[in-house]
């Protein structure tokens, strides 16, 4: 059963790993991805990033993405956490953990989960630049292409 959460506060990577693996000896590997706020966009320095989401639908979409991963790989658990609100460069935004008996499933599922999270969960980022201007981040074709690898 996947653990899915949307929250403003930082997540505890060690705590989440411990929760995912507690009392289990059948897990052979855990894939992990942590997305963090980069300090620039298109060569311009960024001072903050604000994340907006669609309460209700976000949790449903994340649960559906996790269920999709569980149907494609033999996972022994997975964790999806996404932060919202104002974040600053260096701060973690998103956490994906996928546990499996063997590493290939754990790593593939981790990659799948972040690819689909980026393109199928209703979150939007707004960047604030050093000069005080703000800009909504545009969706990237590369992200759509990465997500499309898993279709079919």
């Amino acid at each position, binding site marked *: 059963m996947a653990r899915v959460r949307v929250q403003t506060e930082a997540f505890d990577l060690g705590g989440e790993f411990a929760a995912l693996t507690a009392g289990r000896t059948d897990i052979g590997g855990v894939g992990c991805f942590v997305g963090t706020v980069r300090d620039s966009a298109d060569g311009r320095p960024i001072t903050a990033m604000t994340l907006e989401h*669609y309460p209700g*639908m976000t949790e449903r979409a994340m649960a559906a993405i996790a269920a999709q991963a569980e149907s494609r790989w033999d996972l022994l658990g997975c964790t999806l956490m996404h932060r919202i609100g104002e974040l600053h460069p260096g701060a973690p*935004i998103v956490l994906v953990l996928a546990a499996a008996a063997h590493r290939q499933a754990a790593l593939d599922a981790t990659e799948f989960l972040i690819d689909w999270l*980026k393109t199928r969960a209703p979150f*939007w980022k707004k960047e604030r630049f050093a000069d005080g201007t703000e800009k909504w981040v545009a969706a990237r074709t590369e992200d759509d292409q990465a997500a499309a690898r898993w279709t079919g």
Partner: protein
Amino acid sequence: MSARSLHLLYFAWLRERVGRSEETLDLPEGVATVAFLTEWLRGRGDGFAAAFAPGVPVRCAVNQEFAGPDTPIAAGDEVAFFPPVTGG
């Protein structure tokens, strides 16, 4: 909410352009799909005309599931409009 009402939500730059995050309105006559609703909203005025202008990338969800232009809309539905998602 009356039996004929529709709950609309707007997110990110779409919310800024239409100047509201949500509203409840009576389901307009003849509006049976997302495409019809988009066309109806476009006719409401400046902010809406700009937000829903042809060629502007707007996504939609009906009752919290991603929807397309042909997705049916009925009274009591929650319909959300937003830009292509950029999380992760």
